[in-house]
């Protein structure tokens, strides 16, 4: 114990300036790095989205040539999923897990540093692939072969980037699992952990399970491209559909990797601002676990049009529809938490309610997509685009905004501007729906996804969608301004600025939280 104390004593005179950030092993510094990186990537991916919507503003080819357009959609997807949403949640885990379980830091401090610093390398690989001969990967973020065996150097850079991102995620996940299982304060049994910790524990297990599968499939793709293997090439005895099975065995749990921590954040915020404990805590835990388990047996619902036996289609349809049950339980529990509370509607609560409202719409369109005959029509159309943006933007991203506003006072010791935050919420809410609601209609009416130009009957909804997208993109600049203003000149925050919050970081730590959260663990009754 004395040795450990000594190490801690030394690390207090940590380097300053840029070296502080490069060499840091502190969970808060690393959390900040993760969050800054993901915000940057959000704007890079957002820029690509603006390009896509600008091209689709009117029929005809105006701004982006078809090949470049395909690169934009491909990199938009990859950067948003692997660069923006996933690292943002890991950033939240870094900041919050030690503070919420009463630990001083993460379990593997150096690995934590390494898992972050892999990310900028992968991000740069993805971005610079636009400038190599042949351009960036253009086979969609799902990079199905044989199309992805056709591309040039950009595809190899993408494969390499995915390997690095995967390694980073696995290390992050191992760190989170170890921290949660070993470093909880005395008395904090598993069933007393905050929901955010539970959701991240389950998410981390999913990451450890599926990221190696992704690594495997991109490696097979790489050897198909350069070393003469034929895993996915029918002419050599392979099968292009094999890739889809392996990819979606990773890809579907991946969807829940991006949404379970969002459930966790919302499950912290709703009780706080309802001033009432979370309704059905244990059923929330079980629902999260059931979603995670079910998510591993539904992958082929992404492939209903690939062609599979009726029995296969039916199995994956039933399993997928079943996910609606634990997800519904979560929504009902949140509603019951709000019921007969004493609610106030600060920005974190607004974003959480916006999350539930829009995530439920995304959930409904998910059930619609699960029904095989309907999916045969909407597969690979804008309906699917609308569906997954409802669960990933107004789902994951809104929960991230909610969490950021909720914990900014603890992180910075200062309050954000409530009025501007509300503006940010309402602008995001309105422009989001303008952008994506009409895409349901586009998909139903028959507009395929990933096309740079479209038939004339789709023109007006595309224009509406593009206007919404520009508005949504601009609104996010306000978020950056609010954060900068909060950090620089926000009012001093109280140790517990929210009346109703009950987790350790609010009840036991000052604002801003000290560099080492808990040097002596608190005792949980």
């Amino acid at each position, binding site marked *: 114990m004395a040795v450990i104390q000594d190490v801690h004593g030394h690390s207090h005179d940590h380097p300053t300036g840029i070296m502080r950030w490069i060499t840091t092993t502190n969970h808060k510094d690393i959390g900040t790095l993760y969050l800054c990186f993901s915000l940057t990537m959000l704007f890079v991916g957002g820029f690509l989205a603006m390009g896509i919507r600008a091209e689709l503003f009117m*029929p*005809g*080819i*105006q701004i982006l*040539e*078809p090949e470049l357009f*395909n690169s934009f959609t491909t990199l938009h997807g990859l950067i948003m999923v692997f660069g923006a949403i996933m690292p943002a949640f890991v950033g939240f885990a870094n900041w919050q897990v030690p503070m919420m379980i009463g630990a001083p830091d993460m379990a593997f401090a150096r690995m934590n540093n390494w898992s972050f610093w892999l990310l900028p390398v992968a991000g740069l690989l993805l971005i610079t692939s636009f400038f190599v001969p042949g351009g960036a990967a*253009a*086979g969609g973020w799902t990079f*199905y072969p*044989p*199309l992805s065996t056709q591309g040039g150097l950009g595809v190899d850079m993408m494969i390499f980037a995915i390997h690095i991102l995967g390694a980073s995620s696995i290390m992050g996940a191992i760190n989170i699992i170890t921290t949660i299982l070993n470093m909880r304060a005395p008395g904090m049994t598993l069933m007393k952990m905050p929901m955010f910790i539970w959701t991240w524990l389950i998410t981390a297990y999913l990451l450890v399970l599926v990221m190696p599968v992704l690594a495997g499939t991109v490696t097979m793709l790489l050897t198909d491209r350069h070393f003469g293997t034929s895993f996915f*090439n*029918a*002419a050599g005895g392979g*099968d292009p*559909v094999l890739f889809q099975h392996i990819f979606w065995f990773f890809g579907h749990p991946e969807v829940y990797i991006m949404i379970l921590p969002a459930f966790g954040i919302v499950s912290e915020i709703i009780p706080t601002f*309802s001033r*009432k*404990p*979370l309704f*059905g805590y244990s059923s929330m835990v079980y629902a999260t676990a059931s979603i995670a388990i079910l998510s591993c047996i539904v992958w082929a619902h992404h492939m209903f*049009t*690939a*062609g599979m036996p*009726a029995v296969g289609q039916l199995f994956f*349809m039933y399993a997928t529809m079943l996910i609606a*049950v634990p997800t519904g*339980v979560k*929504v*009902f529990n949140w*509603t019951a938490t*709000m*019921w*007969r*509370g*004493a*609610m*106030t*509607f600060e920005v974190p609560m607004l974003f959480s309610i916006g999350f539930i409202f829009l995530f*439920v719409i995304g959930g*409904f369109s998910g*059930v*619609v997509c699960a*029904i*095989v005959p*309907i999916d*045969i*029509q909407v*597969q*690979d159309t804008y309906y699917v685009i609308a569906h997954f943006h409802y669960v990933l933007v107004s789902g994951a991203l809104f929960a991230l905004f909610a969490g950021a506003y909720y914990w900014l006072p603890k992180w910075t010791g200062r309050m954000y501007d409530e009025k501007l935050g509300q503006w940010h919420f309402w602008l995001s809410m309105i422009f989001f729906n303008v952008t994506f609601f009409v895409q349901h*209609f586009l998909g*139903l*009416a028959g507009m*395929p996804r990933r*096309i740079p*130009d*479209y*038939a*004339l009957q789709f023109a007006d909804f595309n224009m509406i969608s593009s206007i919404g997208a520009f508005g949504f993109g601009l609104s996010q600049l306000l978020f950056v301004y609010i954060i900068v203003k909060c950090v620089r000149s926000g009012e001093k925050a109280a140790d517990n600025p929210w009346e109703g919050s009950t987790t350790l970081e609010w009840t036991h730590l000052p604002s801003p939280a000290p560099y080492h959260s808990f040097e002596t663990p608190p005792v949980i009754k």
Partner: protein
Amino acid sequence: MSSKLMAVLTGIMVLVFYSGAAVSSKYNFPEPQSTIAQQIYDQHIMALWICLAIFVAVFGVMGYSMLKHRKSVGHKAANFHHSTMVEVIWTTIPVLILIGMAWPATKTVIAMKDTSESDITIKATGYQWMWGYDYLQGEGEGISFYSQLATTQDEIRNQAPKGENYLLEVDNRVVVPVGKKIRILMTANDVLHAWWVPALGVKQDAIPGFIRDSWFTADNPGVYRGQCAELCGKEHGFMPIVVEVVEQEKYSQWVAEKQKASAAIVNTALAETAEDQPSKN
């Protein structure tokens, strides 16, 4: 928000969904032209209504709570946090609703897979970037042609006004007779493509090296348009599918013309090869 306003909003939403169903094409699936497409259409409308009902119920409760149980109107927080009975109820009811939705879908899936006893079999091959069609069996056997986008580059590049069927017209349409069971075999030459005609309720990936199949029986004569639905490279948005459904007599006429034309081509080719290189077929 007053409850009156809520009622008005709900009314508007119902109207939007209803008119969406009525107006068709722009807000909803195109008018179904086959039994399967009709079943898909009906199941989608049913799913919409169920979702709408659940949506109104859940957010009705949440909205009421947000109005009445707020601190600013002086509501004091209760402290209940658990009820096994309630959890069981709201787990069971969704299961029953889902079974109700899955039942008709199951029947349709089985029907969709039944490609047996077709009248005509056509193979559709995806190429970067056009479709090739071979009539393999039934009336018209032996007909074979490519089908390419008919929209001009000038229209796409905004140099000329865009025509009515911009991006949805081809040089050679797939012609089939009305009321006959048409089996389509899909495959591809290079990368993945997908053969999709929404009004007929058919979408199936075309996979190089493998053959998949699907079927439709068109109810009415007409021209039905679709597009490639699996990203296949830069011209992915420019390889439409156009199916022309005609009366039986007109179909026989088309078959006769096609066969005469291809016979003429074969004859000319044969004549030429006979003159030039007798050994090379």
